[in-house]
């Protein structure tokens, strides 16, 4: 990985060489956390707030790319996926959104709020038994986000929320891993492993954890505080001394 100017975004691995020269002045903010933790509610609130503050915001989700959403839905319905094809389909979907939504929005100076990012794939792939080194190589084309906010929860709080909410889903319960034939039991085992994996990733990648057991308003207040802090720091480093010196030097010439 070569060093790039501090204002430029960094690739997670080998990146996309054909986009190396793109300037991406926007901000990439990721909200991670397991299913049912309240990500979409919080993102809607964040978006409204940021727009009121005068920032242009673009949302992007997981498995929503026009190129692949149908294929992924079909494949899930037919259960013919294996860990490798499953991982690669999500990687293709991710790449599609990266190149068609995230990078263009960042180029245009938007704040991109990503509902899940590559870390979701890291966690799920690890649970499916895919080689973690391979997963991170595949996602080497990703941009490193500017800020990752992690909605942290425990299983006992999560279970009633999911049951009261949209209910238990085959995939989110990890039924594909054959942990148990009982969906409730499978959900508990799968989600507790997923939570453990997210917590591990939080340490590895320096996520900012927010306690998702709190009320919606409390969580939102904390998220806003972290986003404000990030935007303040970013605005400060944008008036870089090096850049000022360069401009000064140019004026002299």
């Amino acid at each position: 990985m070569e060093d790039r100017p501090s204002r430029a975004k960094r690739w997670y691995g080998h990146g996309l060489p054909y986009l190396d020269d793109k300037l991406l002045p926007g901000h990439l903010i990721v909200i991670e956390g397991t299913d049912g933790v309240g990500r979409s509610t919080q993102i809607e609130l964040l978006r409204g707030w940021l727009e009121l503050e005068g920032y242009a915001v673009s949302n992007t989700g997981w498995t929503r790319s026009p190129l692949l959403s149908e294929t992924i839905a079909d494949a899930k319905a037919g259960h013919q996926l294996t860990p490798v094809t499953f991982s690669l389909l999500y990687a293709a979907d991710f790449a599609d959104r990266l190149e068609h939504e995230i990078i263009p929005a960042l180029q245009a100076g938007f704040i991109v709020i990503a509902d899940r990012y590559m870390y979701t794939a890291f966690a799920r792939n690890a649970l499916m038994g895919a080689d973690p080194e391979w997963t991170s190589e595949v996602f080497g084309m990703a941009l490193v986000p500017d800020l990752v906010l992690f909605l942290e929860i425990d299983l006992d709080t999560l279970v009633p929320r999911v049951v009261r909410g949209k209910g238990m889903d085959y995939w989110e319960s990890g039924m594909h891993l054959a942990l148990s034939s009982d969906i409730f039991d499978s959900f508990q085992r799968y989600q507790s492993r997923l939570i453990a994996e997210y917590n591990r990733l939080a340490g590895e990648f320096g996520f900012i954890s927010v306690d998702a057991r709190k009320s919606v308003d409390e969580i939102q207040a904390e998220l806003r505080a972290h986003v404000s802090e990030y935007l303040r720091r970013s605005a400060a480093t944008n008036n870089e001394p090096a850049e000022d010196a360069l401009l000064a030097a140019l004026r002299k010439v």
Partner: protein
Amino acid sequence: MSRRRRTLLSSPHPYPGRLIAVEGIDGSGKSTQLQLLERWLRARGYPVHFTEWNSSRLVRTSMRRGKRRNLLTPSTFSLLHAVDFADRFIYQILPPLRAGMVVLADRYVYTAFARDVARGVHADWVRGVYRFAPRPDLTFFFRVPIDVSLDRLLTGRAKLKYYEAGMDMELSSDLLESFRLFQGRVLEIYDELAQEYGLRVIDATQDIAGQQKTVRRMTGEVLREYDRGRTRNNNGRSPIAS
């Protein structure tokens, strides 16, 4: 990150079957050669399984949609083909290899290494994506100059395909010129791959029967050890009648 990680492609696979792949640019005649090889192997009693690039049903919808609307970027083009390969690998390549069959692959991972890198993805990235692919026992690279392949394609079906000509790369607005530039780059990378991975280079400007003779001779050499195993399993009956 110039150091290349070891992949399964660096050492022979552990399966009882044999894997034979053909590579080359469009119009190199590789599919014709593989079909002729398949007929020969079947006539000699080998259990053969044929599999072809970009043929799994899993990504057909996405691939068609992406190509029709020119939605594909170099990275999604690459990953969709990787899904196709992974799907075929798991359901069509690995089981026959483990069952001791001879698997014939029309294009293998080297196609991705050449085409996707010509499109601009990182050479080490695409190698990483395909890290789960085992090394074939024999890979033929049918080498042909661009003009010969163009002649063959234009007499065959009279129209070049958009992605085949690399039109998504915007190298030229002229289809023929774009094909020349893009496939020229692919050809250069194939030459490098032939060195790196020991692909067997066949001069694909030769007549078809002459090439096939070479292909059969090399295949026969690769199957010699395999034949011995089969002979034991078949109570001394050789699968090769002659």
